[in-house]
């Protein structure tokens, strides 16, 4: 094992440490022009912005970039995040100068090209999810969730069904589900899962009723297994007058194999930055398009791309008067949507069905190899979907090596950590999702690294506790960070 990670570099100072009064990147300056600001509104002191040359800025941020893991440089077996390859072509053709230069409020006569792409994307997303209508405007998965629950709320209110203020959520759900329900003024009702990972139907039967607005589900669930009783759940909730919300976090698992609309869901959000391969950008931008069945069509967030003959235009308040409204300043993350469009076109009809298949093949192969190597799956009787959970409970008990220790040590081996400690109800868990874009050799390398770490855990658990060793920093003191808040750079006194 070579402990020198290629991104390991000497410490990079902050850009403010590089700043010198009077230095500037003059090639970027417009001509000096006089502006008349009334004295009482004028800024008195210059802001703390760095004064550096263009080269210094370029070198600094290039060096910082080299301190990151990324898909382009490392494998991310990150459960529930679908870290697949982000094709470069998607970026290049979404960044054509005409697209980048287009003002969102420019007349639609100057935007038929971009609107055609977005309209085609809406249509393809409808097809792949089995829904009746799609709005592309939500700017992230969490905003898509918000739109979904807000539409459920609007639907019940429009029917005068004002008592429906409860959203049912499995206890293994993503934290955004309950947070979203609260943001929409709903009460959150959590229900348990059974030992095999399916929703506890008895518990569900117990809580559905005249207060039920809806249920939020991920399928495959966050436990990495397919929710086998989905048809029963749909019937139970629908019969009680509630609607079904599909959290699209795990859509990659079933792409082309099962459509949420066919499972009985009334509304879905898709994470285009997962399933449709737009980049994560170090934490955004995402895009959280929503799809709806017939009942929720009138409530879609605006704007939506409409088509009159061969002309495209934005549908707004006048076209959709019952809409839940606008969620962004303009129309959402257009650039992300273009990337998703290009990706879907390159993958095409048959490729779309292969995605679910090969994501599932890769996950089940990893699971099989981990089993052979003596690791413990959290749900040993179940198939993996596009992801699965290992529990490190035994390693923690026998050697004191926790899931966190495995995760941190993997970084030294050049693998991003799997998702740790989520879902919360499985102790010492690693949630592993390889995606379809990884080759068998990469998967084998990852398993070998885990086996090596397991051996280390038995021989020298202390070594794991100190990991990582080869990155720009070692484990950071989170308690100090939260107690002594240092959130901005300050000049030395």
């Amino acid at each position: 094992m070579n402990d020198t990670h290629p991104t390991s570099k000497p410490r990079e100072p902050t850009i403010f440490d590089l700043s010198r009064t009077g230095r500037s990147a003059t090639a970027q300056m417009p001509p000096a022009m006089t502006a008349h600001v009334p004295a009482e509104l004028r800024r008195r002191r210059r802001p703390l912005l760095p004064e550096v040359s263009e080269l210094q800025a370029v070198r600094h941020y290039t060096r910082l970039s080299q301190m990151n893991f990324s898909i382009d440089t490392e494998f991310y077996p990150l459960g529930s995040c679908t870290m697949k390859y982000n094709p470069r072509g998607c970026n290049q053709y979404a960044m054509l100068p005409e697209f980048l230069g287009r003002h969102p409020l420019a007349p639609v006569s100057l935007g038929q090209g971009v609107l055609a792409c977005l309209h085609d994307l809406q249509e393809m997303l409808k097809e792949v999810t089995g829904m009746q209508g799609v709005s592309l405007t939500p700017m992230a998965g969490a905003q898509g969730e918000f739109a979904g629950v807000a539409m459920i709320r609007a639907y019940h209110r429009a029917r005068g069904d004002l008592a429906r203020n409860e959203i049912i959520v499995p206890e293994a759900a993503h934290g955004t589900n309950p947070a979203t329900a609260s943001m929409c003024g709903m009460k959150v009702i959590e229900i348990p899962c059974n030992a095999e990972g399916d929703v506890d139907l008895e518990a569900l039967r117990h809580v559905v009723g005249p207060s039920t607005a809806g249920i939020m589900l991920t399928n495959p669930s966050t436990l990495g297994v397919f929710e086998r009783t989905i048809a029963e759940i749909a019937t139970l909730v629908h019969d009680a007058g509630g609607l079904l919300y599909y959290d699209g976090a795990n859509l990659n698992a079933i792409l082309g194999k099962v459509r949420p609309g066919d499972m009985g869901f009334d509304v879905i959000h898709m994470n285009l930055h997962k399933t449709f391969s737009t980049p994560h950008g170090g934490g955004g931008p995402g895009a959280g398009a929503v799809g709806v069945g017939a009942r929720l069509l009138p409530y879609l967030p605006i704007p939506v791309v409409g088509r009159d003959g061969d002309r495209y235009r934005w549908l707004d308040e006048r076209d959709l008067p019952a809409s839940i409204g606008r969620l962004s300043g303009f129309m959402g993350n257009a650039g992300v949507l273009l990337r998703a469009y290009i990706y879907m076109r390159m993958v095409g009809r048959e490729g779309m069905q292969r995605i679910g298949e090969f994501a599932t093949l890769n996950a089940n192969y990893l699971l099989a190899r981990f089993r052979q190597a003596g690791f413990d799956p959290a749900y040993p009787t179940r198939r993996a979907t596009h992801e699965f959970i290992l529990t490190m409970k035994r390693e923690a008990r026998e050697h004191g090596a926790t899931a966190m220790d495995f995760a941190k040590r993997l970084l030294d081996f050049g693998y991003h950590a799997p998702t740790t400690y989520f879902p919360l109800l499985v102790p010492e868990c690693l949630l592993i999702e390889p995606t379809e874009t990884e080759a068998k050799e990469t998967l084998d390398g990852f398993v070998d690294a885990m086996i090596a770490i397991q051996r280390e855990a038995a021989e020298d658990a202390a070594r794991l506790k100190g990991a990582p060793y080869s990155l720009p920093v070692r484990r950071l003191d989170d308690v100090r960070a939260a107690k002594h808040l240092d959130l901005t750079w300050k000049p030395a006194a």
Partner: protein
Amino acid sequence: MSNNVPAELRYTKSHEWVRKNPDGTVTIGITDHAQHALGDLVFAETPESGRAVAAGEACAVVESVKAASDVYAPVAGTVVAGNEGLADAPEKINTDPYGEGWLWTLKPAAPQDVDALLDAGGYDKFLAESAE
């Protein structure tokens, strides 16, 4: 895990402790068990004096890097004071949960409510049952 459960205090199943003071007020904090479970505390928010609270109402928040937890009023009453010393030193809840780590004092609406809470033996038993 060994838990310190002082005999003279009263307890709740949500892991608050209550001490009766000679002046008729009570002091409230979180138990040793709770501070262990939360880990190193980095922040505590205590209620403003004069606030009327119902039993079971969320009154304070304690926060570690991995969890944030509401602290509930064990009995109804009026808040006398929050522990301002915690603003700069939330770690006192970890180091001295029954002393300097107290959260707030309360004038109970009905003093006898305090006697209805768990005693040390009852809380010990509850902890043992929950651990199974």
